[in-house]
């Protein structure tokens, strides 16, 4: 019996030792570096092991026959190999290829400030727009603390890298926004029409952008709206300048939000000293509705619509100094509808479609002048993208823009009606090619046809980026950019060509550990700019495309969220050298909107104990020029530099209540934006003038934001932290 047992035991052990196969070897990367932690196992079995610190592995298996050995490591291409298990030792030297991952690979960021929750190298977010002092809750106000922009206090619009404000375009969810700013009086700052809380991500490109975007000589701002919120909620805000209420109803795959906003600056203006005499303070009423619906597995349909009515009357506004001072009255009605759909058709194919419609009426009374401006715009776009291989992607699309502009003017000498309608047809294609995870190039082209101008233009766009280390990279971009002349000129003539700017941009960026540094050198060559020769602006023969110019400069940006605990600061500096001959310029000159040095420093601090986020912003813009018709030098006068020290404080009073206070230009720097002159000289031959001042030296905002949800526990913290 014993013998039998031991025999059986011997047999069993012997048998198993005969069948046992040893799998051993080493795993290394492409350069021969040992890879530890690699999962090496036989497919469908429990036999396997992780490689050790030298990349070595060794395990035994009782399985026999042919099985597949799987070798896996995060960040590497999986490797598999059939092995014949027959009781001996299998030795393998395995080399793993690094997986190409676009997320970790170099990306082209020349000229671009991108922010979204997915990106590590976030530079500015919609949240920053709300909480950055000086931005005062305005999308465009916040962007003016970024390099490449020049603050024009009498405009409030974006002026990018020596470009005029009309040279920048705004897109929401892929659709062009025809009227991104509120209507305003000449020389009075305006704000963006849209609430920054609407957006989850921004891309601000200050040059060299993709062939997808046309009709912008200087910059594009791409805003994407929020997705489906987490739950039903009601939001109320009470501010020193107005009220708004908003409600969101959610269902499983979608949500609808309705918002009503009423703003009236009268109470505020009666308390704070104003530089202008307002007969009727700015007042506006707007309604918004937004629907978001998931379609299929990955599709998202978004619909947004806003109706906006506003008006104001500025008393004794010194616009035309030769005539008696008169009230300037403006009534504005604006409707905007925006629809977009995004979908992934297959693993490789994606498409998005966007549509927008705008109509805008500006009714201006400026005794004895009456001007009625009506703008109607349609925008339609369809883009396709295909990932042909993991390193090669192609994008193409078509775009249609229709714009008609009507102007009815009643002036002393009679009535004038002018109008134009233009249809722009465009197509683009662009290839993105990765040579490795370190080098990427984007090559594209765009064609545009305008029926009103009867012009056809083709424009190449190139950009590339090279990663020198995990954290640092160089990027470069070159391209031609065309844009139709401004609406005010197209009213009088169609015998013009699109204006052109060629961009040359070179940038360096390095970011690590929540610190980002970037420097960018650029040169812009402006061609075929429209010139208005002589005072007869209503004659088509007064216009031609003989203007030209250049802008060059250096932009510098540093953001550090790490060094100071609970603190975050950024410093922007831009140097700009530009001259151009355009519009009514008699010769090449520095334009009024350009300032040589622009500096901004923002600091934000989270005070946990006080549940508060404080922000301070100091901005400086070197003196800009303006023209004095009494002088023989064109644009020869200089205004004082622009300086402003801004503060903002957000305090979380309750879980669902935020109090907010902000002041712009706390110390009351005397800012002045040049002078406006009479169009004709007085009896002694002198053109009379008046200073162009900001609406007020300081601007205060107080507010309280309340969020209510069914659970009652939703919080505003997310918004300020």
């Amino acid at each position, binding site marked *: 019996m014993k013998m039998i047992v031991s025999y059986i035991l011997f047999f069993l052990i012997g048998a198993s030792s005969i069948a046992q196969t040893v799998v051993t070897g080493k795993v290394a990367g492409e350069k021969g570096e040992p890879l*530890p*932690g690699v*999962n090496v*196992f036989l*497919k*469908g*079995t*429990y036999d*396997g092991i*992780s490689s050790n610190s030298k990349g070595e592995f060794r395990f035994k298996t009782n399985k026999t026959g042919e099985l597949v050995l*799987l070798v*896996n490591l*995060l*960040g590497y291409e999986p490797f598999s190999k059939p092995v014949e298990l027959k009781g001996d030792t299998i030795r393998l030297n395995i080399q793993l290829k690094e997986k190409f991952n676009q997320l*970790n690979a170099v990306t082209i960021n020349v000229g671009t400030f991108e922010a979204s*929750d997915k990106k*590590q190298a*976030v530079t500015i*977010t919609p*949240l920053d727009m709300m909480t950055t002092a000086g931005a005062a809750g305005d999308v465009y106000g916040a962007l003016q603390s970024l390099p490449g922009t020049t603050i024009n206090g009498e405009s409030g619009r974006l002026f990018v890298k020596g470009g005029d404000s009309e040279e920048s375009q705004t897109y929401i969810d892929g659709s062009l926004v025809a009227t991104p700013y509120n209507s305003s009086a000449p020389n009075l700052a305006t704000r963006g029409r849209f609430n920054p809380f609407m957006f*989850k991500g921004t891309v601000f490109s200050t040059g060299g952008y993709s062939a997808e975007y046309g009709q912008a000589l200087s910059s594009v701002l791409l805003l994407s709206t929020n997705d489906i*919120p*987490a*739950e039903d909620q009601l939001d109320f805000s009470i501010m020193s300048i107005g009220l708004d209420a908003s409600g969101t109803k959610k269902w499983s795959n979608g949500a609808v939000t309705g918002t009503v906003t009423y703003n009236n600056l009268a109470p505020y203006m009666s308390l704070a000293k104003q530089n202008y005499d307002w007969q009727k303070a700015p007042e506006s009423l707007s309604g918004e509705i937004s629907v978001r619906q998931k379609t299929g597995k990955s599709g998202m349909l978004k619909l947004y619509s806003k109706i906006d009515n506003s008006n104001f009357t500025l008393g004794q506004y010194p616009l035309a100094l030769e005539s008696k001072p008169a009230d300037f009255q403006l009534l504005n009605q604006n409707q905007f509808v925006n629809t977009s759909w995004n979908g992934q058709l297959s693993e490789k194919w994606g498409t998005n479609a966007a549509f927008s419609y705008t109509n805008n009426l500006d009714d201006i009374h400026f005794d004895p002048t009456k001007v009625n401006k009506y703008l109607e715009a349609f925008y339609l776009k369809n883009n396709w993208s295909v990932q042909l291989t993991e390193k090669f992607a192609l994008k193409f699309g078509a775009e249609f823009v229709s714009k008609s502009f009507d102007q009815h003017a009643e002036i002393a000498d009679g009535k004038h009606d002018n109008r134009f309608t233009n249809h722009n047809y465009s197509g683009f294609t662009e290839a993105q090619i990765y040579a490795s995870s370190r080098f990427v190039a984007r090559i594209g082209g765009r064609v545009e046809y305008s029926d009103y101008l009867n012009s056809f233009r083709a424009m190449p766009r190139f950009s590339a980026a090279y990663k020198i280390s995990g954290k640092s990279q160089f990027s470069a971009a070159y391209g031609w950019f065309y844009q139709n002349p401004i609406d005010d000129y197209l009213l009088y003539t169609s015998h013009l060509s699109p204006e052109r700017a060629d961009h040359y941009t070179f940038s360096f960026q390095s970011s*690590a*550990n929540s610190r980002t540094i970037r420097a960018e050198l650029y040169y812009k060559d402006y061609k075929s700019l429209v010139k208005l020769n002589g005072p007869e602006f209503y004659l088509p023969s007064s216009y031609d495309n003989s203007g030209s110019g250049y802008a060059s400069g250096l932009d510098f940006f540093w953001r550090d*969220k790490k060094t100071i605990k609970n603190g*975050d600061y950024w410093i922007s500096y831009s140097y700009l050298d530009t001259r151009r001959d355009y519009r009514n310029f008699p010769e090449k000159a520095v334009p009024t909107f350009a300032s040589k040095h622009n500096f901004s420093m923002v600091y934000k601090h989270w005070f*946990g104990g006080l*549940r508060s986020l404080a922000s301070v912003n100091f901005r400086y813009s070197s003196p800009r020029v303006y023209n004095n018709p009494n002088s023989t030098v064109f644009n020869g006068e200089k205004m004082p530099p622009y300086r402003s020290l801004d503060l903002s404080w957000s305090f*979380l*009073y*309750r*879980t669902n209540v935020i109090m907010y206070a902000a002041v712009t230009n706390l110390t009351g720097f005397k800012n002045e934006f040049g002078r406006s002159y009479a169009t004709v000289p007085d009896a002694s031959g002198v053109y009379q003038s008046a200073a162009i001042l900001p609406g007020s030296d300081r601007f205060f905002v107080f507010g309280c934001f309340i969020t209510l949800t069914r659970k009652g526990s939703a*919080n505003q*913290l*997310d*918004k300020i*932290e």
Partner: protein
Amino acid sequence: MKKIILLLAVVLVSLVSKAQNPEYVQKMGQTLGEFANCKTVDDFQSLGNKFEMIANAEKGEWLPLYYQADCYILMSFVEQGDGAKKDSYLDVAEKAISKMTEMAPGEAEVYVLQAFYLTGRLVVNPMERGQQYSGLSQQANSKALGIDPANPRAKLMKIQMDMGSAPYMGLDPKSFCPDAKELLAKWDEFKPKSPIHPNWGKDQVEGIVKGCQ
């Protein structure tokens, strides 16, 4: 009678073995035991590797995926390096979790882990991701509580979330101490479905309760 019992036994055994073959249960138990020794990213990775191997051998089981994802989430917490690395670990966890939610959409534990994973994403960059991921994480955990209101890990997760956000809300984190004490007192009443089902969290509640005193 004997025959019937025998037949039943055979059927039962075959059923059990079909549901969970003994090698699987044994291997899982053995591998789960190694959790206690894991401290570094490398430790968790090689443990995660083992669960990956088991998941590969047992295509119908969600538990190996659960623990594989758990290992990679823990790696993201242990990792001292940059956010991109943490995100790459969480990418692995995300894949495993999405497979799991398809295989076992009715399991509360799956959503507790999903909430944990989303917290991991948030922790990579709280400033930028706070808004989105705190909401998503709460949603996932609510789903778990909806399926199984008694699940102690879902309750633990909720207490942790509440306590974590309390200082920002002007609340005292200790106001959630009674919840933690109650959870600890009733912890053992919850019986996992099997020895290899998730059973972690008691020491975490103990830690919270200790901190309350």
